[in-house]
């Protein structure tokens, strides 16, 4: 052993340490990868050694490599090994490595649970500290659930250092395990008034973060925070509190008024310091959300004039917040904001853009968009340009095109935007075009003319290098031209444009739309020709179709191919009929009859269910394999496809029809079968040459437009000005006149209610409210919340009293049955609960008793020693241990006292003594880390008036149980307690025991020796005690489900035994609680006065009990996989029961 160690330390001298590694990497700049792989090999060797120091060194190096981007997940297990080292140096490194490299997917993470639990309860605050810090980085839902209770306990730790860490980490725990919020909240709230400022600020942090997500649950805390705000001097805390109020005020307007005064005070007091304007804007930003604070905007302006970039940015940010409440005060800064658009910093430009969004009105929309358009032209860098584009569209389309007074202008803006090179937002423009064309009826004619010219110049769009983006516009163009073909001026021309060979280079889904709309167009041309009696013309069109369609039939895109071949056949058929002089136009156009009406996206949902209609009732009994209800939208689509060739049903269900169309459109857009084929580059090259020679853009359109060629939006601005001018002049006759002037100015809703002078009447109106919603639509906006919001789970009412079922699981073992019978899960939990109140009572009683005794004694004699025991048991994996410590008369007084959070049992064992030893409390925890090890944590409390030091604890080992001593010390050496105790102070020491067999109870004798020092001098004192490990203490409360329980009993490999106790008057309920409490059983099932109970030993023995209560007696039948254990257990139980 010693040799090995020497060898280890010699080896270590040859190992690289971190510094060497770093230096090495820096010296191997050229072949870094090679050097590192060599290092990793060395590290792997080092990890194989037993010496923990070598391992820690290796892990430390790995952590560095991880940062450089090398994968170290293979070493996860070694990291855990280092984490569990007892030396703080190594533990620290282990936890650091874990916090850097572990994540939720790391599978070994579950192995850490017990190690972490052990470290959390370590006597050294720094051990606990590193464990908490590490845990905060890699906490998973499982870890959160298992450790929530331990962390909660730490929130009341004696050291503020631990308290604040525990408080902060609770936030992470809440996120991962929301059930813990309610039980932990009262304690969290307490921490707001913690004497330590660090803990207080931690609590403020946590509550602020929680409240930000779900403010309404935290309103009741407002007074407390108000007090904190006025009393605290810590700026960090203040900012958090203000932020919290920012979230609360929208819910409670009165709060806003109350806050004004303290806030203004704050602003003024902070304003004096060096970071004056910084702090001011920090405060402003936090508060401006929802506070009636006008001074805000006044303050921001100087901040922005100061114009260091961060402040400029924040000024803009603050303005956007103020904008929501005080739009007027921001609008006056329009020029400044537009200036910011020229800033070379993108973040500032983007912020300014955001502001513009909120600033537009009917009046200035055109002007602002015009400015933006010039920026679009100037902008370098596609990201910013794209951002501009989306912003333009956002600005224009916001609140249902509220600010657009002239849709012709808008369409021409959209068309101008199509000339942007390399934008990714073609689909956005397309969607806008479709939306406007469909919803604004009056604009259709204009839109169609624009679209047809777009189609005409399609080759331009399609041939640009980044074709994928903008050519989406053609999708909209083709559709609009087809659908509203009656508005086309030169349908024939457009038809030819759509049938050009170059169209085949477009992406598949666009081609498909082309094909479909070619037919629509064709149908309308046919009708025109036939009405005009031009049979030859009609035939010529048909011939054109027959000639050109085959190019689509050959398409590689299935959708295109299918549609094209279908239509080709149809057209051929028509050709035959035409040859026979049969009029076909009527029938062909019937294919596309029916008007398209816009429907709001949520309209369907909002149709109220008529009375007497049960939507859930089956109309027919379901077929065995029928489609589910959910598929309805699709079904609608299919059905619609089938009947399309037929004549449209009566006008009566026009709405229904519209919906189907919408569905069809949707379907086309979303259809996953529209595989977007990209034609081979070769082909593209063949098609593209000579683009420059093709005359484009400046086509003279013979549309009755005021604008020749492709209208420039600028011209609309002028026009619009004129229009407004006119409006003013002829205020009264305005409407009629304008209708004549701009025919498109037909408004659907004849008159607007009382327009002020400010208000400018739009030229066209968007249909929405009236038509797109069904009658008596329900004004609902539910389901707007994102169900995936991780914070939603924390939306918990915290003022409700805590229900039993919500208490934190103290110790839960996952067992196989969990998934099988979860519905019974609450049985053991509820059982546990019942113990709690009792314990508390007891605690109080004891405390009272202790005090009395103490007083008595103090009168009698010298300092009164007392030993108090706290016991707490923690099982890890499968370890549990109960210990009671006894002290022989003559030394001190031991009083057991039940401890925090329902940790297991306690036997009060008051013993009194004569001398003056330190009282202590002990806290026992099983440890998981190594087989059959138990940690006994003893809290030593000095109740005497002397200072106690040099404490040593020695225990006489038995064959079965052994105290683990530091390396190198002999069996008879005591284990030193690493602290001193001044009078009235308590501290915790931990000792580890190894237990071989658990089938029998154990008693260990021990002595605590110490030096008591007071004014009169120092005396050596001793305190004997006995540690009692009962069999029950090896049991772990394990929930069991009745099905699993039954199986266990049936298995037959359990031995049996029974006891009977007479003279019991206690109620059965209490009796069971007692058994659960003292012997760690859980109730599986209870029927009348009969109950089955279950528990498991740390070594995996199953113990089943059947408890029956007779008149005055109780019988307990037990089955267990080990007969000795069972009989010992039953003996212990008999003692307990006899006391009842």
């Amino acid at each position, binding site marked *: 052993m*010693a*040799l090995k160690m*020497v060898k280890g330390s010699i080896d270590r001298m040859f190992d690289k340490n*971190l510094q060497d590694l*770093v230096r090495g990497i820096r010296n191997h700049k050229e072949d870094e990868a090679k050097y590192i792989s060599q290092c990793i090999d060395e590290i792997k060797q080092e990890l194989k050694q037993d010496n923990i*120091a070598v391992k820690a060194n290796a892990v*430390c190096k790995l952590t560095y490599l991880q*940062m450089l*981007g090398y994968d170290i*997940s293979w070493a996860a297990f070694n990291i855990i090994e280092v984490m569990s080292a007892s030396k*703080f*140096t190594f533990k*620290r*490194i282990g936890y*650091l490595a874990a*916090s*850097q*490299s572990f*994540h*939720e*997917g790391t599978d070994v993470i579950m192995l850490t649970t017990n190690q972490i639990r052990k470290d959390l309860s370590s006597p*050294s605050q*720094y051990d606990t*500290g590193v464990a*908490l*810090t590490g845990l*905060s*980085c*890699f906490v*998973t839902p499982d870890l959160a659930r298992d450790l929530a209770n331990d962390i909660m306990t730490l929130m009341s730790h004696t050291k503020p*250092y631990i308290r*604040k*860490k525990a408080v*902060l*980490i609770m936030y992470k725990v809440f996120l991962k395990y929301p059930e813990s919020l309610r039980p932990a909240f009262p304690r969290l709230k307490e921490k707001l008034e913690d004497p330590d400022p*660090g803990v207080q600020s931690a609590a403020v*942090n946590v509550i602020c*973060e929680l409240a930000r997500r779900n403010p309404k649950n935290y309103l009741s805390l407002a007074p407390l925070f108000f007090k904190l705000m006025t009393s605290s001097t*810590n700026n*960090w*805390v203040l*900012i958090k509190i203000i*932020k919290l109020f920012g979230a609360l005020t929208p819910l409670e307007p009165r709060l806003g008024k109350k806050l004004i005064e303290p806030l203004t005070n704050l602003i003024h007091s902070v304003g004096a310091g060096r970071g004056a304007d*910084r*702090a001011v*804007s*920090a405060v402003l930003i*936090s508060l401006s959300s929802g506070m009636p604070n006008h001074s805000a905007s006044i303050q921001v302006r100087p901040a922005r004039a100061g114009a*260091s*970039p*961060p402040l400029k*940015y*924040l000024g803009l*940010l603050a303005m956007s917040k103020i904008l929501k409440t005080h739009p007027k005060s921001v609008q006056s800064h329009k020029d400044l904001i537009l200036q910011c658009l020229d800033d*070379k*910093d993108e*973040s*500032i430009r983007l912020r300014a853009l955001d502001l513009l969004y909120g600033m537009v009105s009917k009046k200035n929309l055109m002007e602002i968009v015009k400015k933006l358009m010039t920026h679009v032209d100037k902008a370098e860098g596609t990201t910013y340009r794209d951002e501009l584009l989306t912003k333009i569209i956002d600005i224009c389309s916001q609140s249902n095109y509220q600010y657009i007074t002239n849709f012709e202008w808008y369409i021409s803006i959209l068309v101008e935007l199509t000339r942007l090179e390399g934008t990714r937002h073609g689909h956005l423009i397309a969607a806008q075009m479709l939306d406007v064309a469909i919803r604004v009826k009056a604009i259709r004619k204009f839109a169609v003319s624009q679209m047809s010219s777009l189609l005409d110049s399609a080759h331009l769009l399609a041939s640009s290098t980044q074709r994928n983006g903008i050519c989406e516009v053609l999708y909209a163009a083709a559709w609009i031209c087809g659908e509203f073909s009656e508005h086309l001026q030169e349908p024939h021309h457009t038809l030819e444009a759509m049938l050009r060979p170059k169209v085949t280079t477009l992406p598949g889904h666009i081609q498909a739309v082309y094909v479909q709309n070619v037919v629509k167009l064709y149908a309308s041309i046919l009708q025109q020709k036939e009405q005009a009696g031009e049979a030859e013309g009609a035939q010529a069109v048909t011939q054109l179709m027959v000639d050109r369609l085959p190019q689509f039939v050959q398409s590689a895109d299935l959708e295109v191919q299918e549609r094209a071949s279908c239509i080709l056949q149809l057209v051929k058929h028509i050709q035959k009929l035409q040859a026979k002089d049969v009029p076909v136009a009527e029938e062909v156009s019937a294919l596309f009859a029916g008007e398209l009406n816009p429907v709001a996206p949520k309209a369907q949902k909002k149709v109220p269910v008529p009375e007497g209609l049960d939507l859930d009732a089956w109309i027919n009994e379901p077929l065995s394999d029928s489609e589910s209800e959910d598929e309805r939208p699709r079904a609608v689509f299919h059905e619609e496809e089938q009947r399309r060739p037929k004549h449209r049903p009566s006008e009566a269900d026009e709405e229904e029809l519209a919906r189907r169309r919408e569905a069809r459109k949707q379907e086309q857009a979303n259809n996953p079968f529209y595989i977007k084929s990209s034609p081979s580059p070769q082909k593209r090259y063949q098609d593209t040459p000579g683009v420059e020679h093709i005359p484009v853009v400046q086509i003279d359109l013979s549309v009755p437009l005021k604008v020749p060629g492709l209208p420039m939006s600028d011209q609309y601005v002028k026009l619009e000005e004129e229009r407004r001018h006119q409006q003013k002049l002829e205020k009264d006759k305005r409407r009629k006149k304008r209708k004549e002037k701009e025919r498109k100015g037909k408004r659907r809703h004849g008159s607007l209610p009382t327009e002020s002078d400010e208000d400018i009447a739009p030229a066209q109106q968007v249909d929405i409210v009236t038509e797109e919603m069904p009658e008596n639509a329900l004004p609902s906006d539910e389901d707007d919340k994102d169900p995936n919001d991780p914070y939603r789970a924390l939306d918990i009412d915290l003022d409700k009293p805590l229900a039993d079922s919500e208490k934190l699981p103290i110790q839960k073992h996952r067992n196989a049955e969990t998934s099988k019978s979860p519905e019974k899960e609450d049985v053991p939990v509820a059982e546990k609960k019942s113990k709690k109140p009792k314990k508390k009572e007891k605690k109080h009683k004891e405390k009272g008793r202790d005090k009395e005794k103490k007083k008595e004694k103090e009168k009698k004699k010298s300092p009164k020693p007392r030993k108090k025991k706290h016991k707490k048991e923690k099982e890890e994996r499968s370890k549990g241990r109960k210990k009671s410590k006894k002290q022989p008369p003559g030394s001190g007084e031991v009083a057991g006292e039940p401890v925090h959070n329902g940790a297991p049992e306690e036997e009060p064992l008051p013993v009194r003594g004569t001398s003056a030893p330190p009282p202590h409390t002990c806290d026992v925890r099983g440890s998981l880390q190594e087989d059959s090890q138990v940690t006994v944590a003893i809290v030593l409390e000095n109740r005497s008036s002397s200072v106690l030091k040099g404490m040593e604890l020695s225990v006489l080992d038995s064959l079965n149980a052994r105290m683990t001593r530091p*390396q*190198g010390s002999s069996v008879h050496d005591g284990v030193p307690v690493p602290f001193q105790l001044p009078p009235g102070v308590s501290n915790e020491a931990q000792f580890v025991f190894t237990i071989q067999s658990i089938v029998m109870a154990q008693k260990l004798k021990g002595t605590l020796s110490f030096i008591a020092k007071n004014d009169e001098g120092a005396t050596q004192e001793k305190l004997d005690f006995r540690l009692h490990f009962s069999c029950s203490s090896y049991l772990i409360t394990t929930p069991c489900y009745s099905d699993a329980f039954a199986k266990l009993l049936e298995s037959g490999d359990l031995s049996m035994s029974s006891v009977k106790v007479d003279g019991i008057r206690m109620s059965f309920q209490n009796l069971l609680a007692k058994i659960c409490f003292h012997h760690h059983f859980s109730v599986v099932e209870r029927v009348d006065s009969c109950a089955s109970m279950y528990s498991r030993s740390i070594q995996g023995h199953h113990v089943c009990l059947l408890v029956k209560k007779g008149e005055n007696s109780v019988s307990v039948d037990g089955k267990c996989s080990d007969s000795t254990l069972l009989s010992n257990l039953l003996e212990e139980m008999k003692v307990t029961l006899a006391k009842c």
Partner: protein
Amino acid sequence: MQFMLLFSRQGKLRLQKWYVPLSDKEKKKITRELVQTVLARKPKMCSFLEWRDLKIVYKRYASLYFCCAIEDQDNELITLEIIHRYVELLDKYFGSVCELDIIFNFEKAYFILDEFLLGGEVQETSKKNVLKAIEQADLLQEKTETMYHSKSFIGYKKAY
């Protein structure tokens, strides 16, 4: 705060701390992307930028960039203040800190950060307390280290 990165002007990562669990792949991707974006920015530009749905707050100290990602509602200025405070802490601990200090004692840099921030929230606003905690932990470390050495020394004696 979601994460904190320290990187040099050459784009070498010097420290990374993630307060949200992400896979290594994502971390690497984010790091690469951010380092590029931040390094491309000119000195006069403002210290905040919007990136995905987060806000990035960065500041350059000598050759090192300190870069934090915060959520939309978080306060940028306080984040700058946090960065500054961290730099002050490093400075106090190492005594006028330079990049090399952080490279060679990266674990210390982490320990300091861990004492200052926990789970992305400020844990201790007092500089003094943070440094005290670190000093004491270091002391503890040295103690156990010397203990370790002395023990191996005893073992050595016994072996002979």
